[in-house]
């Protein structure tokens, strides 16, 4: 994945995530606000509905109070208590009744939702004295004939009203209108407002009662608010329901369902809370419930208004989200621009590296950030180092090849010279006089020496080439070397000690053998006059599969200022006469050690005499 793609992906995800989160939060806030606003609207609608409802009932109450104060009421009481004639103005009982009936008729004519107006006496089982009514679906207003008037003492409103003080008003619960004991069809919900009447200071003579058609009042409630409306009795029956067939179950013998339908608002019904607004997550509605006090001495009914907030709320969100989305898009554009801006120097740097020639330097682009500047410099250094290493390797290979070819090709003429010196000596040696034979001897020994040098050079060049690493037990290998040099060891009466810690390691067997062989034969060759040589081979493990070896002898030692030179090729410390050697043995040793990624040096010996050769060997990886 490219750097651009990575940064762009990171920025795009951040911006998208941020926008989504912001949108979510905005929507949450908007939703909360919306619900709150709808709740307030709904509560206000419920308050208005309640006020209108109370106003309507209050209007009926005023009417009833007015009726109770009309002259026929008292006139009729006076006439009845005076054998049917009013002592005050001589009007008969019947005259008062007719007058009252006229008032009732006029009242019903002016108030279309008044169903009945009655004057009920206490005497004779609560017998109706005057009754004017309007039948359902019928515009005609009729006064009930005297013989059809009934006793109403058993009706709940009879005792309910007469138990009040004068001037107080009774309001009945709403129920379906009945005519002669049966529920009239079509169903008409009614309520009754009544007040007791009688002579001042005397017990109640009777009551004035008006039946009111509640349909309009209820439908007013139904139209409050934007959603649906319910009116619920404390027992769970509906007075008002969007589905009219579910109302007035108490009159029709159905079971109440309000508690099951509207469980969230039931606290208002059962615990008589003054107001409750709840959010119904399941249906996505807000419900507000408010008690309506109707019937005297009874629990209030509950007005429940609902409004949906889900589904309707998508549209109001969009204007809120628009700025969020706009900011998101702007951030995205800025982010992508920033990404390009960030990646640009890297691209430039890459281009500069691409355009680099094999030998030219890195043209570091100008104006890079410090980090990239550092990177460019590091890169430049690495490239330089790599080139230097390549050059060194190439030159090493060339040198090795040169040494090999040179020594290989030099051997031929030297060999020929040596061969013919031999023939010369054989055939004409005896003919030479004076120093002639010595000259031939010097020449022959020089050719031998030169062959040795060339062989040494060739061998040095070939060290490690084509060798494969294997597991080598150095203790065992040294044992073999000691066995090979047994004759020389015996001749010098030398002692060779091999330490137990000499390890087994992966290395080049032939080269390691040559290393040990050179060191041992050096120690044997360069001993002190008259002292039997003692050579100790020891090793100890270092970390990382590396071992340090020590080869200690009791010979003449190596002066401190010569210690580096002995490892150089063809360097010899001793005169040819004192000790014979090609001067290449230690150079071989150091090359073999470095083939094993080790180092070689010389330390002071523990005793007075001798030298200590130290070297490290690192295991060769397969």
């Amino acid at each position: 994945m490219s750097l651009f793609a990575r940064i762009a992906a990171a920025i795009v995800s951040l911006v998208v995530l941020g926008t989504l989160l912001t949108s979510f939060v905005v929507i949450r806030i908007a939703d909360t606000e919306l619900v709150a606003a709808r709740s307030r609207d709904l509560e206000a609608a419920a308050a208005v509905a309640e006020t209108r409802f109370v106003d309507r009932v209050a209007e009926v109450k005023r009417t009833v109070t007015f009726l109770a104060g009309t002259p026929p009421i008292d006139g009729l009481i006076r006439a009845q208590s005076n054998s049917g004639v009013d002592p005050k103005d001589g009007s008969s009982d019947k005259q008062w009744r007719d007058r009252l009936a006229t008032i009732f008729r006029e009242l019903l004519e002016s108030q279309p939702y008044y169903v009945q107006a009655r004057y009920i006496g206490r005497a004779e089982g609560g017998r109706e004295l005057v009754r004017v009514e309007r039948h359902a679906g019928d515009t005609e207003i009729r006064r009930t004939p005297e013989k059809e008037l009934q006793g109403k003492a058993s009706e709940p409103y009879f005792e309910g009203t007469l138990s009040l003080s004068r001037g107080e008003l009774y309001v009945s619960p709403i129920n379906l209108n009945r005519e002669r004991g049966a529920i009239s069809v079509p169903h008409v919900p009614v309520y009754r407002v009544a007040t007791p009447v009688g002579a001042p200071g005397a017990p109640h003579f009777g009551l004035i009662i008006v039946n009111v058609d509640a349909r309009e009042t209820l439908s007013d409630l139904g139209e409050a608010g934007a959603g649906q409306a319910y009116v619920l009795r404390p027992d769970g029956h509906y007075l008002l329901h969007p589905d009219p067939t579910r109302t007035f179950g108490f009159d029709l013998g159905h079971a109440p369902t309000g508690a099951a339908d509207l469980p969230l608002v039931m606290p208002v019904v059962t615990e008589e809370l003054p107001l409750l607004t709840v959010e119904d997550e399941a249906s996505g509605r807000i419900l507000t419930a408010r008690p309506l006090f109707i019937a005297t001495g009874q629990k209030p009914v509950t007005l429940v208004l609902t409004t949906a907030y889900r589904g309707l709320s998508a549209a109001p969100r969009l204007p809120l989200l628009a700025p969020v989305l706009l900011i998101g898009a702007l951030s995205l554009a800025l982010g992508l621009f920033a990404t390009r801006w960030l990646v640009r120097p890297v691209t430039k740097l890459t281009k500069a590296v691409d355009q680099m020639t094999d030998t030219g330097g890195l043209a570091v682009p100008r104006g890079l950030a410090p980090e990239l500047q550092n990177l460019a410099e590091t890169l430049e250094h690495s490239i330089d180092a790599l080139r230097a290493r390549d050059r060194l390797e190439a030159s090493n290979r060339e040198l090795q090849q040169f040494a090999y070819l040179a020594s290989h090709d030099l051997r031929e003429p030297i060999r020929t010279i040596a061969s013919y010196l031999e023939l010369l000596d054989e055939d004409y040696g005896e003919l030479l006089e004076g120093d002639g034979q010595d000259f031939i001897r010097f020449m022959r020994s020089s050719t031998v020496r030169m062959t040795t040098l060339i062989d040494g050079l060739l061998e040095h060049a070939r060290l490690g080439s084509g060798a494969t690493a294997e597991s080598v037990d150095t203790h065992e290998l040294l044992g073999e070397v000691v066995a090979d040099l047994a004759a020389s060891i015996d001749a010098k009466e030398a002692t060779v000690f091999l330490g137990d810690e000499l390890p087994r390691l992966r290395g080049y067997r032939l080269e390691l053998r040559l290393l040990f062989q050179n060191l041992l034969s050096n120690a044997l060759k360069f001993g002190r006059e008259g002292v039997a040589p003692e050579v100790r081979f020891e090793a100890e493990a270092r970390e990382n599969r590396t071992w340090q070896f020590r080869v200690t002898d009791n010979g003449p030692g190596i002066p401190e200022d010569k210690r580096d030179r002995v490892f150089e090729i063809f360097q010899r410390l001793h005169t040819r006469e004192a000790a014979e050697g090609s001067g290449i043995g230690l150079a071989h040793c150091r090359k073999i050690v470095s083939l094993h990624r080790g180092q070689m040096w010389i330390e002071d010996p523990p005793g007075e005499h001798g030298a200590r050769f130290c070297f490290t060997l690192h295991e060769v990886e397969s």
Partner: protein
Amino acid sequence: MPKLREILLVDDSDADNYFHRRVINKMGCAEAITEKPHGQAAIDYLTTANDAGVYPQPELVFLDINMPVMNGWDFLVAYQNLREEQKAGVVVVMLTTSFDEQDRDRALAFDVVSDHLGKPLRPESLKQVLEAHFPDAIP
């Protein structure tokens, strides 16, 4: 003590040929010594019959490796494909450096190579070759 009838030296170095011829003559083990300066000349010699239709078929060949025109390796490849009546008895490869293992292994990989020696040929090594292949020819 039957001498070898013919020894073939294939080498471009006159000095070496002279020296080798001297070692062989001193040993007195061959009636004739033929010299050829490179592989191609040697192949031509081996594949040329005399008037009687007989090929030279020297008993012993000393073969140098570094030669112009056709070197020792190419000679060996060509020699392998000669007819049996054209081939020599024993072919010994002469190596410039005694410890060049690669060259030694390469020489011995040829079925037709019997032995290898380091240059120059010395009386002791000639004797070894004779002992191995022509014990009767040792004087």
